[in-house]
């Protein structure tokens, strides 16, 4: 599903990743932890093709990120869902329209859009607020809309970059529970966070990064290709 082999990533101002090797199997839930600047976001950006590795190999859902052509980028992203700390919703569209937008701009059949949108809004618990604009929703609700948008194309991998970073404790719990449910449904979830309380609540695999290198991997014992 996801494999990083001896990946280095340099930025003009320094090295972001140093010899990172990582395998994430289908259906896994993985936390990426570490301080700011440890390399969590760089790994996530490599996964959705926003960055290319300086050296090494990154493979995601059958695509080689190292050799990704511009035409491959949209194809890769249609297999992924991505959510961010700042939600990235369009303020001038309702929750429903924000979710529908992801289907429409990827060429989905128009007649199937409303039902698919309502299905994911129901899944994230926001069916009743489908017509609300982002500014009318709480932070937790906005993140749920962003998650609904990420889910609407039925991704095999959900990438979440500090999804609870802007939320209070209650909203954090709600969003995290939602991500767990999504994972239970079979979607692989890779979540960057520095909320250690959240990490300690579960037995999910944790990969800790420090200064661009993997310093701890609770799933390191598992053999590659293990889909557990």
């Amino acid at each position, binding site marked *: 599903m996801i494999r990083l082999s001896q990946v280095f990533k340099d930025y003009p101002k320094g090295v972001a990743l140093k010899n990172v090797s990582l395998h994430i199997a289908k259906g896994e839930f993985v936390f990426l932890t570490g301080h700011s600047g440890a390399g969590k976001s760089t790994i996530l950006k490599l996964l959705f093709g926003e960055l290319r590795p300086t050296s090494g190999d990154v493979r995601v859902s059958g695509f080689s990120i190292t050799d990704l052509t511009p035409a491959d980028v949209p194809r890769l992203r249609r297999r992924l869902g991505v959510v961010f700390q700042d939600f990235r919703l369009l303020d001038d569209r309702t929750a429903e329209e924000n979710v529908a937008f992801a289907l*429409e701009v990827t060429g989905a059949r128009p007649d199937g859009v409303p039902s698919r949108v309502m299905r994911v809004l129901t899944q994230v618990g926001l069916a009743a607020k489908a017509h609300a604009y982002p500014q009318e929703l709480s932070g937790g609700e906005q993140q749920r809309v962003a998650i609904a948008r990420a889910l609407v194309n039925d991704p095999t991998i959900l990438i979440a970059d500090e999804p609870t970073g802007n939320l209070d404790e209650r909203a954090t719990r709600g969003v995290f529970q939602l991500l767990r449910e999504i994972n239970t449904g079979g979607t692989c979830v890779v979540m960057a966070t520095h909320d250690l309380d959240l990490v300690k609540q579960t037995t999910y695999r944790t990969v800790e990064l420090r200064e661009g290198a993997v310093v701890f991997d609770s799933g390191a014992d598992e053999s590659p290709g293990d889909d557990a």
Partner: protein
Amino acid sequence: MRLLVREAFLAFRRAPLLSTLSITTIGFSLYAVGLFALVAVNLRQALRLVEERVEVVAYLLHGTPPEAIAQASQDIAAFPEVARVTFVSEDEALKRARAELVEFRDAYRDLAVNPLPASLEIQLKDGFRDAENTAAVADRLRGYGFIDDVRYGREWIEKLDRLRNIAGLVGFIIGLAFAAVAVVIIGVTIRITVLQRAREIAVMRLVGATHGFIRGPFLLEGAIKGLLGGLVAVGLCYATYLLFRGQVQLATSGIVFLLPEQVTLGVLFGIAIGFFGSLVSVERHLRDV
């Protein structure tokens, strides 16, 4: 396709102020170009009216047989440069002189013998009224044995030539400068529109929209703004024309408006700037992010 049109029109509804501003900017930029074109077209019209007076006069020897004159008139009329040949007899010449040269009326009244020669007045076709063609026709006329002298106001025509060349060159350069300024201003306006929707473009990229799909609504929106801006410019130009029509007189006729083809060309220019300006801005944006 439906989504493309919907998104393009939604952009107008979601940012009415910015859309109005960019249409107005495009409109006024093209208005400046249009005004210049209006002045250029009218200058050319004025020059053409002056040019129409260019004629070559061949004075005939006294006693030239009428058959020879008739034959020569036919031959000359067949010259590629010649539009019309008019024979003016000696009597007619005298009659004209009496009518037109009022101060010499007394001198012409009591003449025993008519001193004025008969002549052929030759009007040239449009496009042949420059110094070179006029001189060529005059030279050919001198070949006829019964033509005594050929006059065509060489200096005057040469001046007209120079004026035409200068007007053409200056017009071209200023027109180009105006168009370039319009392109730059419109380009900046469109870039602002694209930047204002940077978040939307980012979301489209994130969820896997192809570049072609992202470009589509912007290009349509740009073309529509170009069209509306072009129509605004045409309206402003026409209003200006109406304002000045009654007040400015050029030679014998009033000022003229642009031809329908020129108006269409101007509007198409607006659409093209809107379309390609959007294309450049979106491409640059997609490359940068």
